[in-house]
């Protein structure tokens, strides 16, 4: 499935700072240029270029029929995309915000996720559903949900979440190229994050479902994805002062789940902390920690801990910093990884 995004190498490539939003837009543009069956649809994606401007310029370049402002109805959008996919198109749907994907859940769970299976493989659903997700942007209620738990619990969906500018491009290209439906979670607060990156020679596209070690370390593994990656990297830097050499693993999504990379890292370090914004209870961290517990049992020097959003509805903007997993909370968790050789169960009872 690996696609070389740019085959001919230009003489000189200047890598300039680009934002994640720009890289995503470029991925859409390149995918549309490469394949006339790729269609973008959603609310405000055309003339306006999307509320985050990710689809800026697409309607102008490819016309309203390729990048379409739909009526305001998410089930209708996704349902129409299902029909388009039945006819052989590769729709890319934008849900304006995480919580506004909920009206489309019946279409997602009962059709998009199941159609290939329902039809014995006759009707694959090469649909990419872009969902700007997560908090940290001061959004009022219903604008900051981390909804990945719903998606990952739904067999038939892929769940992808980029954390870097280069991955935003590469993973979105790979998702659009996938013959299966992908829920593509775009961390809102990283839209404006920048990296040196060249639209003329974007990195080669890796298949989805491959985790990557963003920072090697020996003491413990931080496992994360999407918006929490920069926080984990910052925590790993800060941890050096405490004498901890932390490995940071970017899952780049949740389905397919790259257990090989995860297990290899944890077996090496013997300790792991899973970090994500989504609520802890019933969130992705539970699955990850359980899987590590099951398959790396004898390598673990300490329980796998989780640093996550609290088990509460997403808070109002002025309180969100208390909810989001931050550097201090991650370091606190690392400190609780039973570093003393003579550690015995304390009052926590574990």
């Amino acid at each position: 499935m690996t696609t070389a995004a740019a085959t001919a190498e230009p003489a000189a490539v200047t890598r300039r700072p680009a934002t994640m939003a720009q890289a995503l837009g470029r991925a859409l543009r390149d995918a549309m240029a490469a394949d006339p069956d790729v269609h973008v649809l959603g609310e405000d994606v055309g003339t306006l270029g999307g509320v985050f401007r990710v689809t800026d310029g697409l309607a102008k370049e490819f016309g309203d029929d390729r990048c379409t402002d739909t009526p305001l109805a998410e089930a209708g959008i996704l349902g129409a995309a299902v029909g388009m996919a039945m006819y052989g198109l590769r729709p890319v749907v934008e849900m304006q915000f995480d919580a506004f994907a909920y009206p489309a859940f019946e279409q997602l769970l009962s059709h998009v996720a199941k159609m290939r299976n329902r039809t014995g493989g006759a009707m694959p659903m090469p649909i990419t559903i872009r969902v700007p997700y997560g908090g940290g942007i001061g959004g009022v209620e219903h604008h900051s949900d981390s909804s990945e738990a719903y998606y990952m619990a739904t067999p038939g969906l892929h769940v992808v979440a980029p954390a870097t500018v280069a991955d935003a491009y590469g993973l979105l290209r790979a998702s659009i190229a996938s013959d299966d439906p992908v829920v593509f979670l775009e961390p809102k607060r990283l839209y404006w994050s920048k990296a040196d990156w060249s639209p003329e020679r974007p990195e080669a596209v890796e298949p989805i479902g491959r985790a990557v070690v963003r920072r090697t370390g020996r003491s413990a593994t931080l496992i994360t994805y999407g918006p929490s990656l920069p926080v984990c990297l910052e925590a790993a830097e800060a941890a050096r002062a405490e004498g901890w050499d932390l490995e940071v693993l970017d899952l780049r999504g949740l389905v397919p789940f790259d257990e090989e990379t995860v297990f290899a890292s944890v077996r090496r370090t013997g300790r792991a902390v899973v970090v994500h914004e989504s609520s802890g209870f019933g969130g992705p961290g539970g699955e990850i920690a359980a899987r590590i517990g099951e398959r790396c049992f004898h390598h673990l020097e300490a329980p796998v801990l989780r640093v996550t959003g609290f088990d509460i509805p997403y808070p109002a903007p002025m309180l969100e910093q208390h909810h989001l997993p931050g550097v201090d909370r991650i370091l606190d968790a690392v400190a609780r990884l039973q570093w003393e050789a003579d550690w015995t169960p304390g009052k926590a009872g574990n």
Partner: protein
Amino acid sequence: MTVLEQPGSYHPVPPPAWRPRVDPAPLLPDAEPHRVLGTPAAAAADPDLLRRLHAQLVLGRRYNAQATALTKQGRLAVYPSSTGQEACEIAAAAVLEERDWLFPSYRDTLAAVARGLDPVEALTLLRGDRHTGYDARKHRIAPLCTPLATQLPHAVGLAHAARLKGDDVVALAMVGDGGTSEGDFHEALNFAAVWQAPVVFLVQNNGFAISVPLAKQTAAPSLAHKAVGYGMPGRLVDGNDAVAVHEVLGEAVRRARSGGGPTLVEAVTYRMEAHTNADDATRYREDDEVEEWRGHDPIALLEREMRSAGLLDDDTSRSAQEAAEAMASDLRERMNEDPVLDPMDLFAHVYAERTVQLRDQAEQLRAELEAAAEAGEENR
């Protein structure tokens, strides 16, 4: 400065942005459902069409009876009969070209059969050995749809896609009166009208959504009156008059094909049987009502017309019956064979490529099956 003194011209009426794009009058349905049989218009009907519809109605009735019988023999997990609604079912199939698409609900296996699908394939879902029992792409019949009204946006998207690709394809989507209450019905019709997609929506108003009668489902003058709210024509037709349904649907298909956009057709009909074999209709409706509708039976209506026009002699009638019997006995026979199943299929179509986790799980199941087979061998 008061607002009045602001620069710029004064507009006593709202600027034109809001103005109607269409005249509502032609979008409204007639007060009475369109009928042909038993009216003077019937004389103009094509005799060949009548004969074809008749043969299909007879076959459809027999198909329904046979499928219901198969539930009693445990050969179908469940069957939602379309007895009494055969005129809608067969007309829906008859108005489509091969390149067109049909979007049936769970009740519309007969429409799929009338379109040419092998009845055994049409009934596979309800037998229970797999989900969709036919190649949906090959037959251009979307999977039988159970979550109500969710197939309607699919039909819109497919028709829209076909139009964008320059293909001359119409989609016909079927839904029940109950299904019109779902949000997906609304969203689909709105998308269709805004996109002027070549879709025909056929609502079979059979009076009930399981036990809930139409009066608890809607307060509208008719379901066809919903169309004007989307800016598409709404048509009301006697759903037991096969010729009328064929005419109204045919016209809607032609309009769609010629770029005229979608149509909503409400066919007034009646569900003669219970919701499914598992349902007990006596809990919520009177026999009187059922009997009244028996007098408006689609086959009876057509036969009366054909006899009076001299189009139905005993021979024709008998040969229609015989074809139906042949279909039924073939169906019975083939449904009595146990389907051959491979449990490993559970993992075959979740994704294009299996995930690591699914590979592990498939291995686990294979090991279990082998162990069970071995144990079976030993016990022999």
